[in-house]
């Protein structure tokens, strides 16, 4: 129960910050902002495995869908897949390891941007993938990476201190 509550609050804060305060941090006409939701989904999947990562992704995406006024379920689907894929790496979870989740977040952001391209842009005839990769995906992945380092420290701290893990042997994590 506490776990659900903590994730609800995390998702809410992420969506709120992403749509308000972080727009001041955006650079360029493209509105490249660090994606807090991807960070939360990556952290949750890395710490807790596929199923839980999937649910966190689904609900985070759903809230974002509602707040942004697009079709319901699109972002939910994307983030859910990210949660599932990142869950595969949960068996390598080690406390205080930052390198693997950092690479996971970069790959996830890249994949997320690619899914957005395929489903939201290709469907109405935008075929210039090169420009999209150069101006949208790469800056997005890099920016997310930079912000991910402090954010992941906080998320990991929350994982260990607030939602006390259900198992003591952290090398064996539910997969």
């Amino acid at each position: 129960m506490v776990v659900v509550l903590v994730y609800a609050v995390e998702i809410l804060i992420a969506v709120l910050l992403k749509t308000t305060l972080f727009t001041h941090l955006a650079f360029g006409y493209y509105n490249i902002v660090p994606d807090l939701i991807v960070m939360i989904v990556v952290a949750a999947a890395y710490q807790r495995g596929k199923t839980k990562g999937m649910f966190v992704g689904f609900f985070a995406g759903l809230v974002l869908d509602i707040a942004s006024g697009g079709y319901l379920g699109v972002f939910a689907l994307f983030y859910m897949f990210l949660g599932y894929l990142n869950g595969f790496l949960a068996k390598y979870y080690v406390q205080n390891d930052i390198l693997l989740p950092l690479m996971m977040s970069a790959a996830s952001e890249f994949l997320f941007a690619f899914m957005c391209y395929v489903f939201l842009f290709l469907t109405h005839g935008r075929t210039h993938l090169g420009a999209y990769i150069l101006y949208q995906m790469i800056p997005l992945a890099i920016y997310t990476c930079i912000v991910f380092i402090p954010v992941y420290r906080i998320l990991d701290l929350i994982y260990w201190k607030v939602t006390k893990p259900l198992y003591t042997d952290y090398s064996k994590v539910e997969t």
Partner: protein
Amino acid sequence: MKERQKPKYDMEPRYVLLIMTMICIFLIFFSYKFSNIFDVARTRMNSFLVPLQKGITTLGTGINNAVDNFEQVEALQKEIAELKAENDRITREKENIEQSLYDLERYKQLLSLADSYKNYTTVGANIIAKDSSGYYARFTLDKGYKDGIQVDMNVLAGAGLVGIITEVGPNYSIVRSIIDDNNYVSAIVTKTDDNCIVCGNLELLSMGYIEIRDLSINTEVRNNYKVYTSPLSDKYLPDILIGYISNIQNENDGLTKTGYLTPVVDFEHLNTVLIITDLKKNLTEE
């Protein structure tokens, strides 16, 4: 060592994924096909989010302004000097224009032309949240149907078109801007009266442009011509400035020309907008 606690339900993650994917696809399908059935849930959720977004945005803008003020003193002083020079020039121009207006008025009376220019009623609103993912260019305003806002109302900033309202709640409304990749505006070019389509394009946006297409191949349009909303559009009110043309070129099909359009509105630094409370469909009915 403590035993790992068993989960209450045991199901292969891939089956969970399959079920959830199906749920998502159903959600997408239903929200596409019957967009009304989720309105209650959407409004509930947004009514909860909007006050929070409003608070954070106010705070963020405050901090941003404080920093900006600090940085901008020097720039502003320079700008004041420039503006003074500009003012002198405009004053001279204004006198000329007043003279020509007087002439025009006289000619109009001679031709007994009806004054076609309409004064729209507007209401101001603040932007409280942006969908900053870069995939949509939408934002949330702090006025809803309680303030008389309706779907399809046009949104302006300064002299130019910003977008159109696509969703309205009790105390918020969502605007899809003209730079959104999914947005199409039917437009008209001054001087040549050519019809064309203005659409958002994510690729050109990094250079500060949006796209203009479907210009006739025979058009004599040049760069820096002004583009206005067309009377043909069924949602956008006529005669609202959108931007200036640049980089006109022939399309490969040999039938149309395309080009870039610089919007008059500075979308990067947009904080307040004006909503026109006249709807196009009401105006045409009259």
